């Protein structure tokens, strides 16, 4: 090899090497964020008031990544001040518990699937959780929102919102499920177009037993609550006015207790977002709105409904607010591990705080101004049993 040839070869090798190495040594550019709009989920931590008492679901234990998170169901029976553990047995509930029930009806619990389970086992109790009986399973994954399951008053029929965004309805026996609507088909209706529906978030029945679906709208001021009308759907939500009419609205929660439908709405986004509740006692024809609660840009991480038009929300950052008589009231800073608020009628609010296998019930009244420890429950979490 001549000196010149050697030089040329060396330069070529060097250039190729550096170019290759520099290219390889540089991290690939990050993917551009998805443009598909999503609705921030509200955790399944919640409480529900029925004739049997007040129920609460909270997640306890350890790491969800290692399936050491186990969802627990607690009941404070009507007339009692003490909570007790009534988690239905027989099924791993790492995927989450969703409860549905109304006055005079059994409480139905759905086990959201996790790991290799892809369908949703269902169970019910009519005696305050003392005994449970299995219902035919829902052959699909339930959506991860607290109002993804509803029981039809009187008949025992079920309405479910699936993880796929489809709403399905089962007959009274619960053995035959049929598709009611999907976010896509609903968005294609006139009501869906007027809303600019981007996702379904909740399902319930009216007191008369008609299905209601709720979701997130992109059109300002439109509340995405829809009622079936023959083969199509009609908007059935409250009409917002003023500044709220200029904001996109998302229905965070939608639930029916007795003759009352309750919705929890967020209006706007970011620092200017507000939360408000709406009630209807005539199946969604007329609605009463609460005052708005400014979230200060904090996400709503848990929301609960109580009796007599009470509600409560937990926001990111360990803050909470309770709604009573149509007005929100900020609560004292929540205790560490607060998972779900339980609004009461007598100005009393409880919060369920979790640390691994220990549930601590704290109470605050409108006059006390600070949280007081009321009860402590140790739950025998079976760590490692689902891994």
């Amino acid at each position, binding site marked *: 090899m001549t000196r010149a040839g050697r030089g040329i070869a060396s330069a070529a090798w060097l250039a190729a090497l550096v170019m290759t190495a520099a290219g390889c040594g540089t991290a690939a550019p990050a993917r551009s964020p998805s443009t598909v709009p999503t609705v921030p989920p509200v955790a399944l931590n919640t409480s529900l008031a029925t004739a049997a008492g007040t129920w609460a679901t909270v997640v306890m234990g350890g790491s969800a990544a290692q399936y050491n998170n186990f969802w627990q169901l607690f009941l404070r029976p009507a007339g009692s001040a003490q909570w007790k553990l009534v988690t239905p047995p027989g099924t791993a509930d790492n995927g989450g518990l969703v409860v549905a029930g109304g006055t005079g009806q059994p409480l139905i619990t759905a086990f959201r699937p996790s790991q290799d389970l892809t369908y949703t086992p269902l169970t019910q109790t009519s005696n305050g959780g003392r005994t449970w009986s299995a219902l035919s399973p829902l052959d699909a994954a339930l959506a991860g929102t607290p109002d993804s399951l509803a029981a039809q008053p009187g008949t025992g029929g079920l309405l479910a919102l699936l993880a796929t965004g489809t709403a399905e309805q089962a007959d009274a026996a619960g053995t035959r499920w049929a598709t009611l609507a999907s976010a896509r088909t609903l968005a294609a209706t006139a009501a869906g177009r007027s809303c600019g529906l981007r996702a379904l978030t909740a399902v319930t029945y009216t007191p008369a037993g008609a299905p209601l679906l709720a979701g997130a709208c992109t059109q300002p001021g439109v509340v995405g609550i829809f009622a079936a009308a023959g083969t199509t759907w009609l908007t059935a939500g409250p009409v917002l006015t003023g500044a709220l009419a200029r904001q996109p609205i998302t229905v965070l929660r939608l639930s029916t207790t007795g003759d009352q439908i309750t919705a929890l709405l967020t209006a706007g986004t970011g620092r200017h977002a507000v939360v408000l509740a709406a009630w209807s006692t005539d199946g969604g024809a007329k609605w009463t709105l609460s005052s708005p609660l400014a979230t200060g840009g904090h996400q709503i991480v848990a929301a609960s409904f109580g009796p007599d038009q009470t509600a409560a929300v937990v926001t990111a950052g360990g803050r909470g607010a309770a709604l009573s008589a149509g007005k929100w009231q900020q609560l004292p800073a929540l205790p560490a591990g607060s998972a779900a608020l339980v609004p009461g009628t007598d100005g009393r609010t409880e919060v369920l705080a979790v640390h691994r296998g220990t549930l601590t019930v704290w109470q605050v009244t409108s006059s006390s101004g600070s949280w007081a420890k009321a009860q402590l429950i140790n739950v025998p979490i079976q760590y490692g049993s*689902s891994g």
Partner: protein
Amino acid sequence: MPGMNTGLNVSDPTIVEAFKTALLHQGLIALLIFLVVGLTWLSLRAWLPLPAATKTTTPAVPEPAWRQLLRYGSGVLWVFDGILQAQPKMAVGLPSQVIQPTAASSPHWVQTVVNWAGTAWSYHPMQAGAAAVWIQVGIGVWLLAGARGPLSRLAGVVSVCWGLLVWVFGEAFGGIFAPGLTWLFGAPGAVLIYCAAGALIALPERAWRSRLPGQITMTGLGVFLIGMAVLQAWPGRGFWQGTASGQPGTLASMTASMAPTPQPHVFTALINAFTTFDEAYGWAVNLFAVIALAAAGAAFLTLRPRLIRPVLAGFILLCLADWILIEDFGFFGGLGTDPNSMIPFALLAAAGYLAVAGARAPDPAVVPAGAETAPPRAGISWQRLRETASLRALASANISSVAGVGAIGLIILGAAPMAAAQANPVADTILAQAIDGSAAPLHYRAAGFTLTDQHGNAVTLTSLRGKVVLLTFLDPVCTSDCPLEAQEFRQAGQLLGAADRHVELVAVVANPVDYQLGYTQAFDRQEGLTGVPNWLYLTGSLAQLRAVWRNYGVAADIEPAGAMIGHSEIAFAIDKAGRVRTELNFNPGPGTAATKSSFAAELANAARQQLGHS
């Protein structure tokens, strides 16, 4: 890389014991190979007159020093690597603990390529682990033994071929496609240096007296080192910072990650000290590295021995320092596969220097006269093979060539079972046995039952007479093990092929809460079992189920607080006459592709045994 991990503990005693046993057996065969080859050689020498041509052999060109260095160096390294492959953790640990992490930061296509081989290894860890031992020891011995001739050159070629396989599949292309590439940490992969050495060893003898090998080696090294210096100096890669935002810089992070490797304390202390030093003086350390690499590369490119000699000494010192302080030797911890890249680099550079320094072989005329009348010491040449009968050629071979032939036997000893295993897409049952132990042979009448299948039809055990029944107990709402077990049953049916029609795959519900027909049907849909003709998922009233559980010794306990049903994981093989013949513990373990395949194979074997007995 889902298929690469068996999910088993790398120190699993069943696997380790089986690996040791396999190595011992194959080691005895290896000894036998050498014994047979040696005895054959000695016998032929005793019985056959040596070919006349060898008595007047032409003067041979002595092997040049650079080639000797490369050959002995590579040989020792391959033997050492082979011995490292015999470490107990290697059989299971290599794919999951070495290959997978190495490839994890590489692009997806690299991971896909690597996963293919890693999966094959994880399916057959015994054969693959033992093969790596014998192939590498064989190549090493072959290189050490073969000084000259076609066999010696062929050893170089084999070294290149195996090295490339290891480089691609074992080292994920030496990590050259991953971020953070640096010579200091082993780029472009130790085995690629072995390949370079093998290629030089494979050069024909006429190249020995040329300066070409030296020129190629030093030019290649020079270009490579300058390229690595540029890469080392490239801003934004974190090598200029000892720490960044309170965290160790790139190099300090790398060395810190090596420190926990199980090794003598003194080496941990050394690497920790270097990490601390680099954190404090990262900029200076990188500047030194850049200058040293660039200077060495530039000096090598001159091809001037006088300039290269002192630089080479410094380069070797740099390699040794890097080997100890940054690469942390590379072979500690029970899963080290080689002594990393610095020793091969030093070896290659030294050989390149010897080649360019004119350490050329003396001309044939310089060979001492006595050599012409010395006993034949030539290797086996193709020419001689053509000229004489092969047996005569073997008889005339020297002991090194005989050792080379034995080494080829070693390689075949490793490669043949490995190739056979790789052709089998079903994992070895050793994985299932490592998780649950061996199947227990039994012989008693299976307890009868009357239950309801997933279609609502009544099924009795008696109605299944004439078929082999694989029976297990599954919780339909189980989130982890039962779906795996169902898949293993289905896979077992597939493995049975045509014999599948003589086997009934039966599961009984093992949940005292969710046992209704809707649950068995939902489970079947979930697992894709609705179209499997010989699959039965049986349930019944709670009383019926409890009776079956009791008769088969199965527990199905309700656990509190949202936990799954705790039930026995067990499977039975029931022969055509209704007798329980095999009981298998049936905890599916980690549920990896390899373990699922292994359990399926174990079930299929249990069924085949009964089909054969009947």
